[in-house]
């Protein structure tokens, strides 16, 4: 089972190939193949997880992929330990739920089969990413998930905004990937290998270190910044909401965006060995988290709120990693995957019902969509960190990880407050109160069972998944993801109380503003018009980029185009013209002089022969005459 774990990514790959090549005309069969493949992977992943968690030994299987002598030697393979097993569960579970959910959500879409092929492609890439035992294979899978993300964001490419968003996501993450690959090359230069084992071994032995390692780690973190939408490359994730909502749930909430977190977690040895890099990671994480949370306060698009929430939570995880909170971060990664995908799927269910993304046109939907509403509430409570839901336990560990760093702790708690606030703002505005759009409300209905069952399952996980990290249970979550010595997570009752209090106050504020209406949100916004507008426009980051990078780039491109069209083409054409003229001259010279010389020689020879051939009379008497005449003449001349 473990030895054949490499088959897990192969399953969706085969599914994709089958759909693309054979069954793409049969929609039901295509979806069935994809879901079956993912279901097998799901079962397999859980089996592996129970095996590995019961017996925390790393398993590595690799084979030679590229061997160019001793200097270039790249094996690829898979590695199964607690972390990758946990990631396997997250990926397969969410993917399976999303695929089942999509049966209903994507029903009637003209590119239904292709949608499932893309999902399978993504599954393959993501599973490869989490199973890789070296940075190289990880990078390959990393790019493949980027491709799948691009394809799925732009899935409805008839919409200009969707195709733009796909391009934006692809290009923005590519900037980060540039850092990633530079980091990889530096690591390879330093350690001579790209396997996790080899690189970490080199760090522990001191072969890698100092400023070199710091630089390499920061470059590596560049990849994570792009993929996990950290400041300053966070701009693509909100736009990525143009894709189908289940895609957002799978790729842009639960799995692909946490690849960056996973990368940093995997390479935490590097970051711990490089103090500056770790601090950088922590600061980027908290800034991202805080910024995204503030933006999330005022957004009106249900998916965008969730997207900023995702960015914010990812910032949490990254920050925790920067502070060395490996367990906290990976724990939160898992719980977040469940409740955030649940939130997205719930949002998708709502959108499916009312055909709009704008929460200002919703309201009172609880009466129409009880299951969606209830599961959404559970997920909101979980993300807010209310006892005993999963978010409580994981967020508690993150807050615990910041102990000793007061600034981080305060900001973290601030984010927790804002998170609770905007999640319940979203909940109250969507599901409670009076319907603000009567027409849409009348047409709203509960989603079909293929959509609600995944919601229920994920809600169940959102509740219970935190319990494997119960502090008084063995070693907590660290026993799951640590393969070395687990460190015991202390349960700080005071911290837990504080964070719960913060969360409750956030919920309370939202309750007052959007349920009781005792505080008018418009007045609050009006009290700080500048701040409100800034937040609504996401700190003008996109606009700043447009002015700072895109505009100059366009101007530069135009200049380059002008240069190309005038100077380069001019040189090329001039060279061509010169060559043409030179060729003509050469032809003229050739025809006139060279041929003339040859022909002239021929003419001379011919003329000479034509003249003297008359000496050959054929008459013997003539010849004899010449002989005797010559005799006489020679005698005279003697």
């Amino acid at each position, binding site marked *: 089972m473990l030895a054949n774990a490499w088959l897990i990514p192969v399953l969706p790959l085969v599914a994709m190939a089958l759909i693309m090549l054979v069954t793409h005309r049969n929609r039901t069969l295509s979806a069935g193949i994809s879901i079956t493949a993912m279901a097998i992977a799901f079962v397999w992943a859980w089996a592996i997880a129970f095996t590995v968690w019961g017996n925390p030994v790393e398993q590595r299987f690799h084979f030679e992929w590229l061997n160019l002598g001793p200097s270039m030697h790249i094996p690829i393979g898979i590695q199964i330990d607690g972390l990758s097993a946990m990631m396997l569960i997250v990926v397969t579970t969410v993917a399976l739920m999303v695929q089942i959910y999509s049966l209903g959500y994507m029903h009637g879409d003209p590119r239904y089969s292709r949608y499932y092929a893309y999902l399978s492609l993504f599954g393959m890439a993501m599973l490869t990413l989490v199973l890789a035992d070296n940075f190289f294979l990880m990078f390959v899978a990393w790019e493949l998930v980027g491709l799948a993300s691009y394809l799925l964001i732009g899935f409805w490419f008839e919409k200009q905004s969707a195709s733009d968003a796909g391009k934006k996501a692809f290009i923005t993450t590519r900037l980060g990937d540039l850092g990633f690959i530079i980091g990889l090359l530096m690591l390879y230069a330093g350690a001579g290998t790209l396997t996790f084992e080899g690189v970490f071994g080199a760090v522990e032995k001191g072969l890698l270190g100092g400023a070199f390692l710091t630089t390499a780690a920061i470059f590596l973190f560049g990849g994570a910044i792009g993929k996990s939408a950290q400041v300053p490359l966070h701009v693509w994730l909100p736009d990525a909401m143009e894709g189908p909502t289940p895609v957002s749930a799978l790729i842009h909430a639960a799995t692909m965006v946490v690849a960056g977190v996973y990368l940093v977690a995997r390479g935490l040895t590097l970051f711990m060995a490089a103090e500056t890099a770790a601090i950088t990671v922590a600061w980027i994480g908290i800034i991202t988290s805080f910024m995204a949370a503030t933006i999330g306060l005022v957004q009106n698009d249900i998916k965008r709120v969730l997207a900023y929430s995702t960015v914010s939570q990812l910032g949490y995880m990254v920050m925790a990693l920067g502070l060395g909170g490996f367990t906290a971060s990976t724990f939160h990664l898992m719980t977040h995957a469940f409740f955030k995908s649940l939130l997205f799927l719930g949002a998708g269910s709502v959108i499916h019902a009312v055909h709009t993304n704008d929460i200002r046109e919703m309201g009172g939907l609880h009466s129409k969509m009880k299951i969606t509403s209830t599961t959404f509430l559970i997920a909101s409570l979980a993300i807010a960190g209310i006892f005993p839901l999963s978010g409580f336990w994981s967020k508690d560990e993150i807050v615990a990880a910041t102990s000793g760093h007061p600034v981080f702790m305060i900001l973290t708690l601030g984010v927790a407050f804002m998170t609770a606030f905007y999640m319940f703002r979203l909940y109250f505005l969507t599901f409670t109160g009076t319907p603000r759009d009567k027409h849409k409300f009348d047409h709203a209905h509960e989603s079909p069972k293929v959509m609600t069952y995944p919601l229920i399952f994920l809600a169940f996980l959102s509740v219970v998944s935190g319990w494997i990290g119960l502090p008084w249970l063995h070693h907590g979550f660290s026993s799951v993801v640590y393969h070395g010595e687990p460190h015991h997570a202390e349960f700080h009752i005071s911290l837990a109380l504080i964070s719960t209090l913060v969360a409750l106050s956030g919920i309370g504020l939202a309750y007052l503003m959007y349920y009781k209406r005792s505080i008018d949100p418009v007045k609050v916004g009006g009290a700080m018009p500048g701040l409100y507008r800034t937040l609504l426009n996401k700190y003008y980051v996109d606009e700043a980029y447009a002015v700072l990078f895109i505009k100059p780039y366009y101007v530069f491109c135009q200049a380059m185009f002008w240069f190309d069209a005038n100077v380069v083409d001019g040189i090329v054409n001039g060279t061509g013209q010169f060559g043409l003229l030179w060729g003509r001259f050469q032809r003229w010279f050739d025809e006139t002089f060279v041929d003339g010389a040859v022909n002239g020689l021929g003419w001379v020879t011919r003329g000479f022969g034509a003249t003297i051939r008359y000496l050959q009379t054929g008459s013997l*008497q003539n010849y004899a*005459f010449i002989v*005797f*005449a010559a005799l*006489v003449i020679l005698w005279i001349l003697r």
Partner: protein
Amino acid sequence: MDSTALAFYSLAFIIIAAAIFVVTAKNIFHSAVYLIVALFGVAGLFVLLQAFFLAAAQVLIYVGAIAVLMMFAVMLTARIADAGVRHTNEQVGTGLLVSLGLLAVMLYSLWDSPFQFSGAPVAEGAGLTLGRQLLTKFVLPFEIVSVLLLAALIGAVVIAKKDDTGRAEPKAKYPAARALREDPDIVRKVPR
């Protein structure tokens, strides 16, 4: 003028005159006759030079064999009646010039050359000496000449033989047309 000189001059006159007739006579048959005369003259010279064997050989071979062979050839080929046909080619003038030039050259050389005279008379039995020499000192050329003569004999037969073995030409249906095809000039050669 002693008798030897008289004999020499008269023989020389006969030879030169006959030779001139040989090369100028319009009738080829006359030429042949004058040639015989000239050859006889030469034989006479040989006698005067006390080369009796050669004189005999001259008469036998030249006059008897070669001249008669010439006669045969003349009979077989020439149209004696062709009095009107030009008997010299167009290089008569230049030919004469060259001949005279050559003669001048030869005579001048002769004039220039000091000849050594052996006052001794010809030894007795010169013919015997000659025969001995031919079979001793000159035996190799002698044998080669015999082979040459044999080769000439066979060669003459082969050449002159009517060649009708190799390419058996079918009898033409129209002999005149065939003759015309073989020699387009035949029309001009038709006897008048």
